[in-house]
């Protein structure tokens, strides 16, 4: 089971853009450790920024993988830039908006914006930006060999695509 950090895909523009949503819930155990109560402070559950970057990486990774119908193994190769300026708390939604900047047989460059939405206002607010590079591992310059099967786009990814009405992309 792969730990998925997006719940659904809401927009897909082939070869260009993919937008995914993550609903942050207090039922997620990791929020209770980030940050627990101390002797002087109450618990402050906030979505870890590192996991938001992973959510964006999954969003952008699906977009890059979709370019060749998930036939290639696409892995996160480099986070060139990541900036997150505000917390996301349980009950809020995160929107990951990923775009292709450059694609090459060796890999791809993406840009992304991260937004949050509070249900009390219903307004989306930009809270961060990313620049993430992906590598097509079968074409890596170091000559390393990887397994034949596509271990990147596993059942977890298929399930998200199917439930978002995009299952045909992996057929």
């Amino acid at each position: 089971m792969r730990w998925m950090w997006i719940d659904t895909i809401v927009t897909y523009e082939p070869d260009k853009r993919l937008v995914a949503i993550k609903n942050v819930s207090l039922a997620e155990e990791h929020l209770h450790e980030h940050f627990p109560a101390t002797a002087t402070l109450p618990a402050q559950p906030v979505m870890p920024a590192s996991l938001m970057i992973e959510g964006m990486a999954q969003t952008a990774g699906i977009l890059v993988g979709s370019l060749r119908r998930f036939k290639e193994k696409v892995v996160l190769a480099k986070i060139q830039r990541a900036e997150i300026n505000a917390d996301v708390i349980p009950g809020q939604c995160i929107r990951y908006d990923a775009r292709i900047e450059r694609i090459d047989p060796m890999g791809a460059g993406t840009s992304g914006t991260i937004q949050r939405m509070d249900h009390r206002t219903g307004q989306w607010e930009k809270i961060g930006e990313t620049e993430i590079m992906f590598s097509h591992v079968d074409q890596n310059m170091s000559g390393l060999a990887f397994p034949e099967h596509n271990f990147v786009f596993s059942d977890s990814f298929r399930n998200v695509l199917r439930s978002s009405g995009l299952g045909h992309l992996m057929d």
Partner: protein
Amino acid sequence: MAISRAEIEEKVTDVLENALGADRDDIIATATLTEDLGAESIDFLDIQFQLEKKFSTPEKAFKIEQGELFPENMMSNPDFVKDGKFTDAGMAVLQERMPHVDVSVFASDRNVKGLAKIFTVKSLCDFIDIKLKK
């Protein structure tokens, strides 16, 4: 208007500082991308993408084709690389395709691992210079 060598060097330095997190003082002409500036294999693609962005203008896109700047598409070709070493054909193609590098630096052992040594800050600037003049 043609871009000067000094402008090319300034822009290449910007790219390497950004892509590798290298100190500007360390980005000198003879510095190798891997040993001196700490580049890893994925950084080469990052450098390529950033150079394209840096040298593109509203009038003309600056596009670097695969294998034009770095020889990544030669590695998996057994005619060019065998047992981790460049063949005669590989060396010939390398020199022909890449006038911006001095392949004689690793001509004695031809080991692909030595390839990294031929990519210096100067070789990147030469590549841009040659390509812009085409």
